[in-house]
């Protein structure tokens, strides 16, 4: 070995001096770098631990972030300590990097958190072993702070996915079973010792990592550069490990997963990386699915989010890989060899679960002993299985077309429609297509075009998402039982099941999102979660956690994105979110809770504005309509008139014993009655939310309000959340305030709550046995029986009648007549959005007015140029009406008026529907005969109705925007029955044909020659820009919510520290005399055997001139690599 090294020195020309040969061994200078941020009482132990170190050459440097109030405490214990106040809080790693600039010279850094208490010999033992093993990084054994007999970490194993496995069992007692020094892949940054030169060579901690994962990144780089990482179990420290408690704003899982993935992506060799990322994605998906049932959903989602958002960080990853590239001195496969085989995540699964249970058990006095966490998992599994059981026929056979549950478009067609800028809804228009069309298109691609599967997923998944949203929200109550009750109650509310029965996708989306929305409002307001509540006096009304401004903005954007997703399907949802925030704030103020809930109101309003921006340009069309009713009542289910009890019992559709669901309101009344402290506050929030929104739904349903509100189903989503929260608060009150107290009026109320919840479960339980939640019949199946467009040309169908029965959002015209227009073929999801009002709607209104007033029997002629071939009047949809109400209220006289028309022929008549064919219809795109061509110049009621509408021959069948349509035309007039737009272009035999207005609203092309023709819609550039802008905004929003920080922020923070002049030179504090005479005389260091690889040691203790450093390092690196090879 020495020979090889000598050869290397000779070849490289390096001139190395081994001071060890020339001078007595000095105790190498060690600087303990402690990053401190608002330490608590435990900090005294930390300082004491440092003060009693037996190591003779130890300096301490405290990097105090924030207000620096800890400085005095430090100086009172360690008067010689270097204390540096660092403005702001840049996170552990970036702050610790200040050592790079504040400390010069050779030696060792011992980085410490401010919640680590060292044993008196910790530093000495670490230095000894580092020196003995010639390691680059060493770390001590970490034990529990409060119970030092329990092991916390003894080094960390890491797999190729960056997953850490400490290989310890939860609560494992230290019996010196792990006390052998060993190579590990990583040691926790809570306390690690690193050679100063190596630390500088590695560039310090990754400044992009504030918390969680900084140690992995550093150690991985150390491995790449050939340095050893050891754990020295004889050196012991106590560690609180309470980051989530001290910084609840930074999240528990997301930053860790994000940083882990970032490290993996930057450290893994380029050849292995693609495969590894795919494996990581699959593993994350698997973990997410498993997490649904094991209570590790958040971890799974965090991993999934990290991997999905990884491409967004590609520039940062590439940049980082360039930075790391010079450190890659060890082949990638060697580093892999140091990692755990397989998946640490899977192998540690069981240990993690037990550890989590133990942690929560320790953190939360209300968590019951034993297996409540497991019970929670079983509970969630059972309820999710019940939901799946209740949806079994939907999953296995698919759901019939009911209400909004219509087939989805092929992804390509949906995206094409969205991007084209031509809205095909109704009579077509140049207005923006609904954002949901684009979303569904993207979602279709995400499921590889399996839109039927996506449709099923979109029906079933919202239920489960809602469940787990409530599970998360219910974490505000620090009681496992209360949390379980909230989960059960939210699952018992019949809203999602009756929404399926009634075919209401928008209600399902609201049900899924509402708990998450409320949870975000809570977090924005700083309302504490259970972990915080559990540590305070139970008599307080609220505990408010500090939320940084940036975090608040991030949560607001998250709120906006969730709201935007639901708003895409239910435009009024954004307004409901604001209303929820207002009600929460009012309830809080009434209950004497934290006024910070007003921040939630501001956040909800901000989210509303963000939602508007995210949905541009579609959202602008909603404003342009200028009609509150269009926005609020545009969906199906408007004006359901279900009645007081059905609305209050969430009975949107069929439901057996549905009225029993009213029993779920028992906690709403009882919870504020028996609650104290924070139970009262949360009970008030839940109760007022339930009462307010249920009341609004009931009153609006009955037409008792002077203004219109969103449909009942949407209003009932927050009411359902309120009931669940009230139930949770009531349960917590029973546990804390009632149990053990003298018998009084409160105890019986507990029984009432229990009975109420039990009774309220029945309707949903019964519905679960049906298999489709009673959604059994199709209301639009007859559309499949209508002829295909290819037979006679494109046509439209006019739905007319009771808006509750119409299968598409309806326009309401004079006299309250409702109608909807859809294009030929089966209905698709795009038809579920209110079509923009166009000139065609004016003609429809006039035609309906004619029929309503019996002013003509030729309404068919008026509808003919609109391409309306069929008029469909639903009579009974077997959803609402089958539930025992009198829904099928056909407008009096409607059928008479239809049969009195001379152009309408009955082509179908069932108990569900009447279908009429307009014999005067003209195809949407048609070459007109002379009569029709002449009349196309005319406009107005009398002109169109008075005489025959003529005939037309179909052309350009299935012409849509985004795809040129071709046909062979004869000379004459081509009618294109869509709203007049300059973006449509007809070319006949290579010649552009100008268009003119037709029938006062449509387009006609007068061609003088025939020949091959092309009809195409040219999307305006501004539309493309708007879509691009929208896409960027969504990406930016997602990136921001994912917690990815702009790099400049870190640079700014790092630069601020780096600009500080050095305050400590290690070379100047070497004190051999102390080594010789102090505690180390004759001690372990004196007996250290220096490894043959002297340059490493020389470089370690005696920093040479900068100009020789590179050569030294190069030599050292080669040597390390060789040594590692030898060890293996």
């Amino acid at each position: 070995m020495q020979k090889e090294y000598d050869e290397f020195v000779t070849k490289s020309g390096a001139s190395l001096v081994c001071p060890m040969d020339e001078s007595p061994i000095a105790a190498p200078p060690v600087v303990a770098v402690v990053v401190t941020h608002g330490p608590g009482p435990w900090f005294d132990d930390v300082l004491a631990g440092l003060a009693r170190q037996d190591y003779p050459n130890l300096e301490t440097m405290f990097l105090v972030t924030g207000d620096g109030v800890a400085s005095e405490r430090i100086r009172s214990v360690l008067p010689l300590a270097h204390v540096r106040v660092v403005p702001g809080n840049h996170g552990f790693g970036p702050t610790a990097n200040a050592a790079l600039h504040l400390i010069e010279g050779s030696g060792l850094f011992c980085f410490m958190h401010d919640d680590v208490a060292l044993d008196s010999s910790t530093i000495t033992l670490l230095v000894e072993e580092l020196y003995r093993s010639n390691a680059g990084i060493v770390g001590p054994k970490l034990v529990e702070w409060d119970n030092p007999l329990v092991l916390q970490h003894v080094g960390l194993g890491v797999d190729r996915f960056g997953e850490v496995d400490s290989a310890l069992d939860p609560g494992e007692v230290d019996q010196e079973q792990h006390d052998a020094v060993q190579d590990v892949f990583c040691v926790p940054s809570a306390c690690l010792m690193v050679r100063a030169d190596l630390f500088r060579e590695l560039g310090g901690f990754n400044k992009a990592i504030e918390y969680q994962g900084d140690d992995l990144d550093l150690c991985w780089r150390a491995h790449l550069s050939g340095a050893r990482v050891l754990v020295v179990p004889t050196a012991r420290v106590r560690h609180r490990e309470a980051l989530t408690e001290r910084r609840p704003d930074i999240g528990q899982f997301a930053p860790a997963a994000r940083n882990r993935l970032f490290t993996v992506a930057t450290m893994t060799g380029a050849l292995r990386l693609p495969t590894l990322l795919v494996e990581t994605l699959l593993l994350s998906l698997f973990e997410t699915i498993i997490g649904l049932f094991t209570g590790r959903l958040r971890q799974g989602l965090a991993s999934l989010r990290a991997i999905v958002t990884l491409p967004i960080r590609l520039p940062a990853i590439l940049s980082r890989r360039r930075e790391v590239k010079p450190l890659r001195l060890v082949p990638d496969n060697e580093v892999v060899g140091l990692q755990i085989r397989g998946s640490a995540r899977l192998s540690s699964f069981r240990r993690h679960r037990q550890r989590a249970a133990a942690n929560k058990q320790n953190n939360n006095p209300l968590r019951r002993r034993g297996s409540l966490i497991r019970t929670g998992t079983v509970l969630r599994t059972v309820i999710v299985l019940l939901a799946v059981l209740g949806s079994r026929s939907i999953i296995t056979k698919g759901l019939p077309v009911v209400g909004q549950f219509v087939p989805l478009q092929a992804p390509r067609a949906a995206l094409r429609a969205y991007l084209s800028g031509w809205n095909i809804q109704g009579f077509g228009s140049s207005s923006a297509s609904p954002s949901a069309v684009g979303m569904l298109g993207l979602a279709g691609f995400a499921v590889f075009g399996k839109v039927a599967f996506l449709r099923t997923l979109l029906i079933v998944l919202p239920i489960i998402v809602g469940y787990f949203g409530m599970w998360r929200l219910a974490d505000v109550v620090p009681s496992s039982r209360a949390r379980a009750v909230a989960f059960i109650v939210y699952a018992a509310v019949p809203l999602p099941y009756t929404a399926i029965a009634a075919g209401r996708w928008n209600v399902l989306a609201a049900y899924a999102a509402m708990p998450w929305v409320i949870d975000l409002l809570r977090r924005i307001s700083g309302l504490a979660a259970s972990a915080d509540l559990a540590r305070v006096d139970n008599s307080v009304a609220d505990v408010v956690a500090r939320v940084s401004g940036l975090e608040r903005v991030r949560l607001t954007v998250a709120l906006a994105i969730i709201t935007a997703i639901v708003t895409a399907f239910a435009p009024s949802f954004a307004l409901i979110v604001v209303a929820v925030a207002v009600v929460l704030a009012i309830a809080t103020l009434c209950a004497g809770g934290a006024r910070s809930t007003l921040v939630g109101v501001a956040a909800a309003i901000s989210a509303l504005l963000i939602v508007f921006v995210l949905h541009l340009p579609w959202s602008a069309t909603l404003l342009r309509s200028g009609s509150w009713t269009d926005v609020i009542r545009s969906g199906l289910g408007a004006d359901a008139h279900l009645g007081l009890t059905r609305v209050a019992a969430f009975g949107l559709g069929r439901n057996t014993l549905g009225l029993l669901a009213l029993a779920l309101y028992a906690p709403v009344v009882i919870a504020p009655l028996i609650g104290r402290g924070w139970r009262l506050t949360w009970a008030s929030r839940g109760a007022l939310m339930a009462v307010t929104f249920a009341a609004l739904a009931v009153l609006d349903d009955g037409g008792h309000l002077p203004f219109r509100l969103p449909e009942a189903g949407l209003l009932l989503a927050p009411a359902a959340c309120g009931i669940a929260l009230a139930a949770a608060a009531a349960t917590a009150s029973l546990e804390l305030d009632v149990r053990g107290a003298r018998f009084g009026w409160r105890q019986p109320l507990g029984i009432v709550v229990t009975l109420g919840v039990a009774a309220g479960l029945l309707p949903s339980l019964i519905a679960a046995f049906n298999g489709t939640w009673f959604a059994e019949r199709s209301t639009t199946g007859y559309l499949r029986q209508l002829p295909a467009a290819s037979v006679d040309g494109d046509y439209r169908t006019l739905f007319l009648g009771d808006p509750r029965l119409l299968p598409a959002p309806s326009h309401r015209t004079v006299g309250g007549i409702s109608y909807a227009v859809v294009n030929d073929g089966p209905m698709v999801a795009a038809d579920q959005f209110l079509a923009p009002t166009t000139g065609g709607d004016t003609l429809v209104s006039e035609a309906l007015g004619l029929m309503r007033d019996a002013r003509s029997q030729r309404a068919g002629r008026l509808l003919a140029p609109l391409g309306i071939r069929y008029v469909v009047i639903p009579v009974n949809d077997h959803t609402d009406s089958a539930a025992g109400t009198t829904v099928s209220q056909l407008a009096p006289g409607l059928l008479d008026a239809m049969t009195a028309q001379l152009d309408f022929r009955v082509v179908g008549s069932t108990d569900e529907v009447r279908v009429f064919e307009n014999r005067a219809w003209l195809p949407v795109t048609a070459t007109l005969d002379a009569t029709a061509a002449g009349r196309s110049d005319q406009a107005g009621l009398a002109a169109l109705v008075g005489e025959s509408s003529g005939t037309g021959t179909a052309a350009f069948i299935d012409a849509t925007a985004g795809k040129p349509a071709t046909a062979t035309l004869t000379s004459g007039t081509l009618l294109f029955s869509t709203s007049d737009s300059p973006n449509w272009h007809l070319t006949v035999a290579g010649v552009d044909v100008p268009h003119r207005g037709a029938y006062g609203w449509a387009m006609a092309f007068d061609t003088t020659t025939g020949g091959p023709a092309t009809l195409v819609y040219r999307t305006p550039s501004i539309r493309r820009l708007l879509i691009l802008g929208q896409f960027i905004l969504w990406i930016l929003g997602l990136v921001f919510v994912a917690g990815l920080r702009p790099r400049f922020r870190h640079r700014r923070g790092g630069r601020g520290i780096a600009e500080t002049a050095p305050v400590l030179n290690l070379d100047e504090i070497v004190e051999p005399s102390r080594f010789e005479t102090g505690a180390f005389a004759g001690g372990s260091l004196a007996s250290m055997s220096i490894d043959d690889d002297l340059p490493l040691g020389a470089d370690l203790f005696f920093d040479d001139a900068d100009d020789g450093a590179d050569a030294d390092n190069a030599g050292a690196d080669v040597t390390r690599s060789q040594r590692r090879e030898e060890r293996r």
Partner: protein
Amino acid sequence: MIRRLLVMILVLGGIAGTIDIARVNRSVAQPEFTRLASPSTPYLPTRDLITATYYCPGLPAASTTAGGEIVITNPTDVPVTGQIEPYTDSGALIPQLISIAPRSQQPFNLDALVQTGYVGVTVEIAHTGVAVEQRTHSAVGTSIAPCSPDASQNWYFADGVTGDGSAYDLVLTNPFPDDAVVDMTFIAGTVQRQPTQFQDFVIPAKSVRVVAIDAAARNEPTLSLILHSRRGRFVAAKVQSFSTKVRNGYAFALGAPSAAVDWYFADGGKGTGTTETYSVLNPTDTDVEVDITVTDATGVLPAVRTTIPSNQTVVVDIAGQFKNASGASTVSDGTHSVTMSVATLGATAGVVVERALTTTVSKNISTTTVIGSQFSSQTWWAPLGVPVATPGALVVTNSSGQAGTFSVNAVGPGGANPITGLEAVPLAGGATFYVDLTVDGAVSVPIVIKSTNLPLVVEQRYPTGTKGGRTGALLLPE
């Protein structure tokens, strides 16, 4: 405590308030289409229509002895346009566009479109206030009939005779694009039957079907018909030529599209050579009592009540019904008007009444049948007027008990102007006035009878052109 109280007040108050408000059922405003009134006897539509549609009963194929025409009268101040769509037994023919000048009248001969049978016609006018009638000719005379503004699912014919040389056809026109399926019921006195061949009888879309009733029901001295469509609406008219000992003549008339509780007849007579019968058909499933009121020269006679059994027709002889204690008729000789009303208060079930009036002039027997008017009006139109100077051409009855005046106006290029001497004709309550259209300017022009304060019922005695015969017809009320 205060906070808890506040929250409880809000929660309980909210629940109680909601229940209190919501328990009051708010009537939900339903959009309402104009309920098409039950089809009625023809009238002149004057309300604000974009297009007015008229269904003409049918024109016989042109021959040397038969034929007909559609006559469209535009009494308004503006030219009107529209189209005529004819139907034959083989379907619809190409519509013809038409244009009628203001205050003018235009006949359209469509009978040449068919070789045999009949041609049904739908006339659409892109205006309102236009009258459409049809005039048919046969060997035994001329008949006029207004075209109906309504198609109906039900048609009733109370009066009818078969056998003894009489011919009785029904002309059924379906102007709609859907087939109509019709069931027919024959009522001969107290006997009701439903011939199999006339059940589920299909009238194809936009076509005409002719049914020979006399072949299906032979030698019936009284025969009523009830036509009910299972699906679709249609128009029904009868073509009756009488050739019996007591009846002679020709009638081409619409049926009654609905039963009614009131029926008005302006013209009636008693005396030598005059036979007047009223066939009262009760198409309902309950017996109906009908009050018969006669106003003759002596005034209004006490009403007589008679019972019409369910699904039967009762032939009422007015002279025989009104008798004094000695058995003598209380109806004076001469003319009289008749009103028949269902006696039951608030009754909606009605009857159908058709009058057969046979007069003998110079041994010429002339029979005319008229379905009465279901309502009275202050304005009545005689679009065809009279082709020649005709004494007693119009019969005007005041259906109220109040006295008043009316005017008779001729519609010419200058508009509707009163005929000299008929500017303000006094009319006592219940009285009848016979209008002579004999002066210049009153012949071959549309006539309109107006009153500012009287509900009138007006009939026409239209010259048949054969041996001084007249055919009766109701005018068109507004």
